[in-house]
């Protein structure tokens, strides 16, 4: 292959593709031709480091070519063209909403919104995926995923202080009977490794992990999804960063080694039996904690003008990005190395963890060095930012890269992708009841997508920093499933008199996506906003993150689903008035098994939502509080069992997904929020997986009270069946416990809306549900809790 590479400019397309496969670049044929033509025009053969740089910079992971590229979408006879799918959907909503409290969106490592009432602080929020590494080595993959997203927060603006980690996982079913290919890790193995990795990194960094979810589906058996997020506080005057010619390029933190070579390009490849161990990354939380401490001190003393993290692509990506407007001169012999046998181009693209790049004025270097030494944090000066807009990288006298920045960042060819939508067959027949309702409820409560996550959650330190007001486990016994986390970031602001906080919640529904990707996006945004309402967050100031994961975008059906989901994101953002502030996508989540069969994941969209909580002392939880209090259901129960957990357990032969009325949902949520602020609501819990019966059961056993409800008074669509009332998962519904002393005020605040009293809290530990005098179920809440509280790990 070295011989082939030595005559790169004379290779034909077939030879280029062969070379690409051998060197692991994951460049497309068009990109290889573009690179070849550039060097032909330059009149020389490329250096290995140059092709490696192009492969990193042009990778799907770094450039997001699919989402930001042109798409031709066809649905039936209708054809729609997009020049840039991302900008015409997700970014467009943010631009049109034009919220003044959005301080920095889509231009830095994370989105930043205003925090608090005095204008002094920004709240940065970002979520990432680390799917491919976790499929190969779950522990290291999860650790470095967490480490990477924390560095995104450290690297946003001039550095934010992390105050919350989030985690959302998708795994194959632990009881899956499917035969795995020879080298694939089993679902339990991946699950256990990922949880251990998230725990060890977050706990050692001293950042609470307090919001997340776990979803099981055999579509993720070979390709787990690991979404990791982080939120942090940044002083408002520290949001702008600037690199100036003459600034030193300073690398701080971990040393550079062979670990993680080709991580960025690896994420654009299908995982197969020949996956290389070099793509595995190893995390070192203690090193990152040192970096965090240095950055916080140096930021406040104004010792650097810009910074970013070394993520995918390592130095090549971080320095290339920071120096894109100026140019950079890099001397790799100055890098601190883990081992000496490493090639210069490997130093350049290595994804060794816990490294950040700072742009430091030479006059401020001594003061920065003092801090680095006092924190025992290693560092090196790699070179300087220039003004010539070229990237020149050397190792002693050897040239590694010599490219103009505009080709590196703007040279990638754009290729139109075909997208097509073929809707599945939808049945609206009356759903068939397959089991007594009480038994069905117990089965649903023990379903892996509904049962307790305590064996995972309790491994995480969600109390560190002392600001987790609403915790992931709630209720009388501290084990009820919360809807959202509420954080009081006094450890970052330094003020214990200001009780301003924020809430974080998620929405995720790949089961709906299999039926209708557009509705999936609406449902997911609605779920995230609904969860925020349940803790009393100010949803008119909701900001969203989108994290898409999909199979290969070369398949028009995959692209078609993506287009519909992106359109759904636009409509949902506009409808809820909630701008997207950051996001990420991950493609090629598919694997070929030992028999040559491809296993793509279902389209998966995680919506993460953040909203302020004006006074964290007034935030509420989901557990029932007092016998005799009335229970209300807000939102209309609609027909359809599509995407429900019930359908997975007992197929009702109805897979209809009801439409979502965003306007009605916003009206209802606004009224509920006013009632919460007025102190009328003591508990709120959203209706999601498992439906209303599961929501009532969870509220009951978390509070240690029973409940008696008659669903004939529930706001509902005409003709909705008892099964749909109990177990249907139509969106936009919340169950609330109202203080009986304030019921009149509650009714006044929610008047004219689909909010109705369905029953009351009772001392007797039983959940009783009826429909106009007909008993539907009557279950002991202790038995329900026993079924729900199974050990996942």
């Amino acid at each position: 292959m070295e011989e082939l590479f030595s005559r790169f400019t004379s290779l034909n397309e077939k030879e280029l593709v062969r070379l690409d496969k051998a060197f692991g670049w994951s460049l497309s044929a068009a990109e290889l031709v573009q690179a070849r033509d550039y060097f032909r025009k330059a009149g020389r053969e490329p250096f290995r480091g140059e092709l490696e740089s192009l492969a990193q910079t042009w990778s799907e992971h770094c450039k997001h070519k699919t989402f930001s590229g042109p798409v031709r979408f066809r649905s039936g006879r209708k054809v729609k063209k997009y020049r840039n799918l991302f900008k015409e959907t997700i970014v467009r909503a943010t631009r049109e909403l034009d919220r003044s409290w959005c301080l920095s969106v889509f231009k830095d490592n994370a989105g930043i919104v205003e925090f608090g009432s005095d204008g002094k602080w920004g709240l940065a929020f970002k979520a990432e995926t680390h799917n491919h590494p976790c499929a190969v080595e779950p522990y290291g993959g999860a650790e470095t995923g967490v480490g990477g997203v924390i560095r995104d927060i450290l690297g946003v603006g001039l550095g934010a202080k992390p105050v919350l980690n989030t985690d959302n996982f998708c795994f194959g079913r632990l009881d899956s009977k499917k035969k795995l290919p020879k080298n694939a890790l089993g679902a339990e193995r991946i699950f256990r490794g990922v949880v251990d990795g998230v725990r060890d990194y977050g706990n050692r960094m001293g950042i609470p992990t307090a919001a997340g979810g776990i979803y099981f589906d055999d579509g993720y058996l070979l390709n787990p999804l690991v979404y990791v997020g982080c939120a942090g506080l940044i002083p408002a005057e520290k949001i702008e960063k600037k690199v100036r010619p003459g600034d030193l390029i300073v690398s701080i933190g971990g040393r550079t080694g062979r670990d993680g070579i080709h991580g960025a390009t690896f994420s654009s490849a299908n995982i197969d039996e020949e996956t290389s161990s070099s793509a595995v990354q190893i995390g070192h939380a203690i090193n990152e904690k040192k970096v965090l401490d240095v950055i916080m001190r140096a930021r406040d003393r104004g010792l650097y003008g810009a910074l970013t993290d070394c993520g995918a692509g390592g130095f090549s990506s971080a320095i290339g990005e920071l120096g894109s407007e100026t140019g950079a001169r890099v001397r790799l012999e100055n890098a601190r190395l883990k081992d000496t046998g490493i090639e210069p181009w490997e130093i350049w693209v290595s994804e060794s963890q816990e490294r950040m790049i700072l742009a430091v004025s030479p006059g401020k270097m001594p003061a920065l060095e003092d801090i680095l030494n006092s924190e025992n944090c290693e560092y090196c000066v790699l070179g300087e930012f220039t003004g010539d807009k070229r990237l020149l990288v050397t190792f002693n006298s050897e040239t590694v890269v010599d490219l103009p920045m505009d080709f590196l960042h703007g040279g990638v060819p754009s290729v139109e992708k075909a997208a097509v939508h073929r809707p599945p067959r939808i049945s609206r027949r009356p759903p068939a009841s397959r089991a007594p309702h009480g038994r069905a409820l117990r089965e649903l409560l023990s379903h892996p997508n509904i049962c307790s996550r305590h064996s995972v959650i309790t491994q995480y330190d969600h109390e560190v920093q002392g600001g987790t007001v609403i915790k992931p486990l709630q209720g009388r016994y501290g084990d009820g499933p919360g809807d959202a986390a509420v954080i009081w970031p006094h450890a970052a602001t330094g003020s214990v008199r200001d009780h301003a906080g924020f809430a974080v919640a998620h929405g995720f529904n790949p089961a709906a996506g299999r039926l209708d990707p557009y509705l999936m996006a609406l449902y997911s945004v609605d779920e995230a906003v609904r969860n925020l309402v349940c803790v009393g967050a100010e949803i008119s100031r909701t900001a969203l993150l989108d994290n898409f994961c999909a199979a290969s975008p070369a398949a028009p059906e995959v692209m078609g689903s993506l287009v519909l989901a992106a359109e759904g994101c636009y409509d949902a953002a506009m409808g809820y008035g909630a701008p997207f502030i950051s996001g990420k996508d991950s493609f090629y989540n598919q694997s070929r098994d030992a028999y040559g069969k491809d296993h793509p994941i279902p389209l998966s969209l995680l919506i993460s939502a953040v909203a302020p909580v004006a006074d964290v002392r007034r935030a509420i939880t989901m557990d029932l509080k007092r016998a005799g209090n009335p229970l209300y259901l807000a939102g209309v129960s609609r027909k359809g069992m599509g995407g429900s957990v019930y359908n997975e357990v007992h197929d009702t032969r109805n897979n209809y997904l009801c439409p979502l009325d965003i306007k009605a949902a916003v009206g209802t949520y606004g009224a509920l929020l006013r009632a919460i602020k007025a102190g009328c609501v003591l508990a709120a819990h959203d209706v999601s997986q498992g439906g209303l019966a599961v929501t009532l059961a969870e509220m009951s056993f978390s509070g240690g009270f029973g409940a008696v409800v008659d669903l004939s008074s529930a706001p509902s669509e005409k003709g909705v069946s008892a099964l749909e009332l109990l177990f249907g998962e139509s969106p936009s519904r919340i169950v609330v416990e109202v203080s009986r002393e304030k019921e009149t005020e509650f009714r006044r605040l929610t008047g004219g809306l689909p909010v109705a009293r369905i029953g009351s809290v009772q001392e007797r530990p039983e959940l009783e549900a009826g429909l106009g005098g007909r008993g539907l179920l009557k279950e002991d809440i202790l038995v329900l809790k026993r079924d729900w509280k199974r050990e996942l790990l």
Partner: protein
Amino acid sequence: MLIEIWTRDGYSGNEEAGLIDRLSRAGLEVGAAKLSRLYNIDAAWPRGHFKRLLSGLLADPITEKGSLSGRPGLDGFYRVEVWLKRSATDVVGESVREAVHDVLGLAPRGVRFGRAYYLAAPGRRKPAGGAAADPYQARLRAVVARTLANEIVQTVTIA
């Protein structure tokens, strides 16, 4: 020098039961299980230095025990050792190396961290003759590779 640390009987029940359950779910019945942590400290020091590290740094004297010459009393158990490959960064090893320096004022050339699992087949003793004469050991190896180690980054030895 290889230092082995394990939890005293009476404190280790949950950990051992959890391991037996995991292996059982992966298709291997195990009669008894014991777990140890291994620290391979690369330094030519007097034995007393390592003893000091064992008692003063690596083992909790209330709940744990340790040895410089292997764990006694486990005849008939299979010993499974799992180590990170040399090419993989060993974060625990690096941290321990720093701690060793802080305790002794001397830096070892390197520290590697590993784990040992002692597993007994249900109702029978380990036969002599190694893996070739022992189908249980072959099965153990396959299950360990699926549950306790990832051979992309780790090495496994069974004795």
